[in-house]
């Protein structure tokens, strides 16, 4: 920042630092790599959703010319998993398979066709077990055996029951109580790039290039499974072709190529087919939800009871965290004085679910927004008014101990109300508008595994006028490299293009926990500011000494430091201090509440979004045409408004896909449509115009006030679509995707005088454990904490 308080590059719509590499085809993605003598790997996967493996015969595969190695579960027996509490996956299963697509054996051969032929030549004898394919089936005793050997009863993986404040008395105080049931179908990330990894092994060291969102977590998992110390493993994130949460787990193919490279002494590469990507999944959990809320006559919430049941698929993945997330963030948008949450995740014989953009929160957001719309109708209050009356206030603690800092909900709502004309909209059949809000984390306040390390570290080296920033962060297309370069450039008075970056390489960059939970701008950004300010201080000190003036008088900007060019200043500083390196790190504040499970939900800051969807819905065909979406997003501060708009628009697109068409559905254990043609996702023709408003509340702890932008704006879209369908046709579609069949069926029910709704009829009986009662936080908790520092 210059002395007059104006930013040099923050807030400017500059092109991304990797834009030219991407528009010229020169960015090297994982599958673009082909090292000399590379062997190609294919993986044999289970054709059964649930079966015991009786025998595996690889002898015929090994005899095929060109096959260099064949491995099975006996070669990689150590279990792994992203969460310490669910180490339940093997790179190759040799005892039991739990979903169609579970990996069993792998081949390295001189070309991909030979590797595939060798996989076909592997004989596997199975004892097929009864498959569990739904939440209801998972809640009862299995015919054969449970899918996993932990959890329970039956196929229940995780149960949670928490109560904050006095819910019963909250309901007693209510003038009106309403209950609703909703279902949010699962969907998959569908990144354009299929997962790919290449490993080499030389001199006792493994190097892996992979399309991953988190090099650090892959690094840890490889160390465990390969039984090598972390200093013998290097993980490098290649240019990334899209993640959306789908490349956040460590994957079997990453371990397999490493093992095969160790066995053959040659580079080994594996690229998943599109069908394999559908089965690798880790996407949106299908979630069934029940919510009961008490309100006063004026629509103020007195108590809420929220229940969720998550269809987790066959393995743990992030599932324990996902379960808590389905109950955590309800309170950061609406002031809920007493709140009870009961959550349940079950195992089913389907590809494991995990984190997809919004991780565990779009589903309850969908239920919550529609539920409040219905309550508003019950009370005869405008739904926008009812929601606004309950908005959380900035700088408060929620009943479940989540610390809210900046909050732009009111401003976001006003922006979309004004632009869309929602309040004065013309009411005519077949045309509707819907409104919804949301919030999301700017990074999780706790890491996936317990450790005391900072969540992000940045180093800066200045040398011969050149600036290099090092950080473990992985740019997955959202522009985290550009954000880092912009922040370093801001502090040193340069342009982002002047900053060279080394990122996502476990050998050469300090730790960053990677691209998930919308954490990079906030956490790596703050680390970059610290490192940048230290470097700026050294440059200023050297220049001030040379100019024989006070350091405070030195101006930094436009490539100059005081009277000197940046290059001259760097030479002066190097002469004065020796090698010029600085470092910064970021650790989130310890603000989690005093209860088990409180690690899920806290974030140093929450983004806020408001959205209006305008659409036409045809009562005869059930077809919905979305005409326009207005969305306002409180990003705190837009470090680069072009990138913020891109994240908001991309989130809207993905939310619209989930609202109208995307569905990860199965028949007899098989994915119904594991191809990009049959798995419907919005094309250019399906996407309406989106009008984006950036709201800047300047968060006190964000880098220059910035918060997240990449996930929160997805969340309000599905409920706003359903509200708009109700506005247009007078029927509630209480589940996504909102397909024409569901609308037509709801209209038919309405005509017959039945409830004008399509959605789940009931919520199952779940053996929740005794509720853990948690006292709400004291009123002045954060003020007291701030005073004690």
């Amino acid at each position: 920042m210059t002395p007059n308080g104006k930013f040099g590059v923050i807030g400017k719509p500059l092109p991304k630092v990797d834009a030219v590499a991407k528009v010229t085809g020169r960015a090297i993605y994982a599958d673009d790599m082909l090292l000399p003598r590379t062997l190609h790997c294919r993986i044999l996967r289970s054709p059964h959703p649930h079966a015991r493996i009786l025998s595996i015969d690889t002898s015929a595969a090994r005899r095929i010319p060109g096959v260099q190695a064949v491995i099975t579960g006996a070669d990689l027996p150590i279990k792994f998993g992203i969460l310490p509490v669910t180490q339940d996956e093997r790179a190759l299963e040799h005892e039991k398979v739990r979903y169609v697509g579970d990996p069993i054996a792998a081949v390295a051969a001189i070309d991909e066709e030979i590797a595939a032929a060798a996989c076909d030549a592997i004989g596997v004898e199975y004892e097929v077990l009864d498959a569990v394919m739904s939440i209801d089936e998972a809640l009862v005793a299995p015919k054969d055996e449970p899918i996993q050997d932990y959890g329970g009863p039956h196929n229940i993986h995780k149960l949670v029951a928490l109560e904050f404040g006095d819910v019963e008395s909250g309901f007693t105080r209510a003038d009106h109580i309403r209950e609703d049931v909703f279902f949010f179908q699962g969907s998959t990330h569908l990144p354009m790039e299929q997962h790919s990894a290449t490993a080499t092994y030389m001199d006792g060291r493994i190097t892996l290039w992979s399309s991953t969102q988190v090099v650090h977590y892959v690094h840890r998992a490889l160390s465990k499974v390969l039984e090598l110390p972390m200093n013998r493993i290097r993980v490098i994130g290649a240019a990334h072709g899209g993640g959306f949460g789908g490349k956040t787990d460590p994957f079997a193919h990453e371990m397999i190529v490493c093992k095969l490279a160790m066995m053959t002494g040659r580079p080994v590469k594996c690229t998943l087919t599109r069908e394999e990507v559908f089965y690798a999944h880790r996407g949106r959990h299908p979630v069934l939800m029940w919510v009961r809320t008490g309100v006063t006559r004026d629509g103020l919430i007195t108590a809420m009871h929220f229940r969720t049941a998550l269809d987790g698929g066959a393995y743990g993945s992030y599932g324990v965290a996902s379960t808590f997330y389905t109950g955590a963030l309800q309170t950061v948008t609406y002031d809920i004085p007493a709140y009870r949450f009961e959550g349940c995740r079950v195992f089913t014989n389907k590809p494991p679910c995990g984190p997809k953009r919004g991780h565990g929160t779009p589903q309850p957001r969908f239920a919550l927004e529609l539920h409040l719309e219905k309550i508003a109708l019950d009370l005869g209050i405008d739904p926008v008014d009812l929601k606004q009356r309950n908005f959380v206030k900035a700088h408060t603690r929620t009943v479940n101990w989540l610390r809210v800092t900046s909050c732009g909900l009111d401003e976001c709502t006003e922006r979309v109300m004004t632009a869309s004309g929602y309040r004065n909209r013309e009411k005519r059949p077949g045309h509707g508008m819907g409104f919804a809000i949301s919030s999301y984390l700017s990074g999780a306040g706790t890491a996936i595994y317990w450790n005391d390390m900072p969540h992000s570290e940045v180093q800066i080296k200045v040398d011969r006028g050149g600036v290099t920033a090092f950080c473990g962060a992985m740019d997955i297309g959202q522009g985290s490299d550009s954000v880092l370069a912009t922040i370093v450039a801001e502090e040193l008075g340069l342009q982002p293009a002047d900053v060279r970056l080394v990122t996502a390489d476990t050998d050469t960059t300090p730790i960053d926990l990677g691209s998930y939970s919308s954490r990079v701008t906030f956490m790596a950004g703050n680390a970059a500011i610290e490192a940048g300010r230290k470097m700026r201080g050294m440059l200023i000190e050297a220049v001030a000494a040379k100019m024989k003036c006070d350091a405070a008088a030195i101006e930094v900007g436009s490539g100059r430091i005081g009277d000197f060019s940046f290059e001259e200043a760097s030479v002066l500083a190097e002469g004065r201090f020796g090698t010029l390196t600085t470092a910064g790190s970021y650790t989130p504040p310890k603000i989690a509440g005093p209860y088990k499970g409180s690690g899920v939900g806290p974030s140093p800051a929450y983004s806020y979004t408001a959205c209006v969807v305008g659409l036409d819905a045809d009562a005869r065909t059930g077809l919905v045409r979305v005409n326009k979406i207005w969305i306002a997003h409180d990003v705190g501060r837009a470090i680069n408004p072009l990138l913020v708009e891109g994240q908001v628009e991309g989130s809207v697109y993905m939310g619209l896909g989930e609202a109208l068409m995307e569905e990860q559905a199965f028949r007899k254990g098989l994915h119904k449509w594991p191809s990009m043609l049959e798995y419907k996702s919005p094309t250019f023709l399906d996407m309406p115009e989106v009008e984006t408003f950036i709201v800047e509340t300047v968060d006190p702890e964000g880098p220059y006030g910035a918060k997240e932008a990449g996930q929160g704006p997805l969340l309000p879209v599905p409920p706003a679509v359903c509200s708009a369908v109700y506005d247009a046709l007078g029927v509630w579609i209480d589940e996504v995707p909102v397909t024409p069949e569901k609308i037509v069926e709801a209209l038919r029910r309405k005509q017959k005088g039945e409830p004008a709704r399509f959605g789940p009829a009931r919520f199952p009986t779940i053996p929740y454990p005794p509720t853990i009662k948690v006292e709400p936080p004291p009123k002045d908790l954060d003020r007291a904490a701030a005073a004690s520092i």
Partner: protein
Amino acid sequence: MKQEVLREVERVVLALDVNGERTELLLPVHKTLLEVLREDMQLTGTKHGCELGECGTCTVLIDGRAELSCLVLPIQVEGRAITTIEGMARGAELHPLQQAFAELGAAQCGYCTPGILLSAKSLLETNARPSRDEIREALAGNLCRCTGYSKILDAVELAAGRMS
């Protein structure tokens, strides 16, 4: 005892004209143009998302028309002008579409970008000032999961304006 090679592979010598350069290659006849570009010619700017003609990612130009290279056999296109993303810039100078995509943030992860750029180039060669709906129609076969398409539409419009 080792088995014989699994199958007989028929190979053919073909001369391909890619980005104005003629190259002779000995190729298995069943190998797709996508595979030949990426694996035999190291032109990895052409990406792939499905290899079934569903996603548009592998789009290249054949005699100026946008085609899916995963559905084309090299033997079909011998002697025809093939343009990949590597052939779009003039030397070090970006094509106006590439420039506009970079300026407006139309490439996020960038994986679908080469295919979309080539589809857009093909459009602008037949329709210099397309309407927004015409751009949508022309690019409807190219999926993108990052951008929500808005910035891509803006970039094609910007480039079209600058080119005409």
